[in-house]
């Protein structure tokens, strides 16, 4: 799975999060930060992670979620890692 394909999928998830301004989702890159760039409430991050697991058919380790950074590339890396494991 290509990294850009994962980013596109993440943007689709972020569009369903009503507390994120849709205008901020134009031009999301690997360096985009969920918290500082998208102003995602920290409480929404776990919802985004759960929806990510569902969309990409993976299950993350709790330790990996605890250590997860807040940039898009961190989630992309985690998805690829989980897919490799599977």
């Amino acid at each position, binding site marked *: 799975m290509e990294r850009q394909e994962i980013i596109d999928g993440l943007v689709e998830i972020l569009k*369903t999060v*009503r*507390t994120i301004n849709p205008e901020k989702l134009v031009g999301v890159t690997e360096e985009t930060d969920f918290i500082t760039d998208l102003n995602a*409430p920290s*409480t*929404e*991050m*776990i*919802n985004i*992670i*759960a*929806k990510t697991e*569902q969309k990409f058919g993976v*299950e993350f380790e709790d330790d990996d*979620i605890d250590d997860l950074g807040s940039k898009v590339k961190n989630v992309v890396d985690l998805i690829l890692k989980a897919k490799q494991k599977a």
Partner: protein
Amino acid sequence: MQITGRKVAVVGMGGAFPNCSDLADFSEKLFSNQSLIRTWDKATEHGGKVRSSVSGFITDGEMGLEPVYSTLVSNNFPETYIDKYDRIPAGNLATADVGSIWAMLGAQDAIKMAGWMTSETQSEKTGVVIGSGTGGNLILRTAWHSFFELGKKTRLSGSHTVDRTMTYREAANVSCLIKNQGVCEAIGSACATGLGNIGYAYRLIKFGVQDRVIAGGVEGTSLETFIGFDGMQVLSRGFAPEESSRPFDVNRNGFVCSFGGGIVALEEYELAKARGANIIGVIDEYFNNSDGDGDMFYPSFEGQKRMWKGLLSNDGIKPDVVKVHGTSTPVGDSIELLSVVDVLGEEGYHISAPKSQFGHMLGAAGSVEFITALLMLKEQKVLPCLNSTTLNPEPEAFQKSEKWAGPVKPLAAYRNLIPQQSFAKQINRIACLNYGFGGTNSAISISKDQ
């Protein structure tokens, strides 16, 4: 300690009312003797598993809300809501169940009616005191089912299970919306919750702790709550929806489980007067107590009499109208009527039972019915005891007991007190009564501003 001379005014109100578009529609329907009770499809779709089929319910669409369903746990689980009229920001909606949204909408309306400036609303001297009966809700049920029955990870239930279900969620959500800096709490006293919160708010102002409080009770539409009471066999059945709630009628056979929200804005009287606020009513006194007989459910004649003594201990002025709890349950209504008659006598006032028109809103009952009392003060009309068609011509069984120390006449002897239709009369003072499981009794007295 009460501060002598410090009074509390009601300066705003709002809420969520079954089958009504807004407060004005609610008022118009009540004073034209309409019932707001309907057959509830959410109950009837379960066929014979649910005993009662009527409710004063409110749908999401009727409140201008659109659920956003979760893809994670269940097809019918509202992850959050869209406010079609953009009244509540998405960030506040994310932390709210439907009841909390109704509370926020009611608070907005109450503050608008009160005319509070932002600096007043966001003051350290402004509190929020709102509660609910919390009989159950879809959010907890779904989260628990996902974990315990489906064996899914906790994170699949989402990160808002706690804030959307915690005991004082309505108060917390309203506080986060209006950004007050004073007290934020919830009082819980079952079916007396709505009035209990208003009474507590009254005391906060009366005792000088706060100058303004947004107060009330909410009960969000919930089949989970409904089935709890349905299983107790205490809900009305066998009547057409509009005839199902019939306080004092000889054929009453249970209450109608309903939902709604009532929020009021209270303010220290002199502050309200000084800024030229429209004073809807003035609170004379609030009193609450417990039966003390160890019985969770059975109403207490003695407990209610002690409640009346406390309520009238201030100035002893009797009310023109008694807004009763009047649930349409066999024992509750008769004990309540007889305690009122024992204290106030057989004439000189009228009894109003708003549950006859919209059913029993549980944790919201006391506050929505408090609003009906404010509407009676405003309109100078008594709301009816709808469907109180026939009063028992025979004494109740408990009246024949040797232990009974109350009035011995049958309920039919008090027909003159119980109107079946709304009517106009001069109303200066109204007493509002509500009781709850656990033997808790609450009463408040309100008057027109003189």
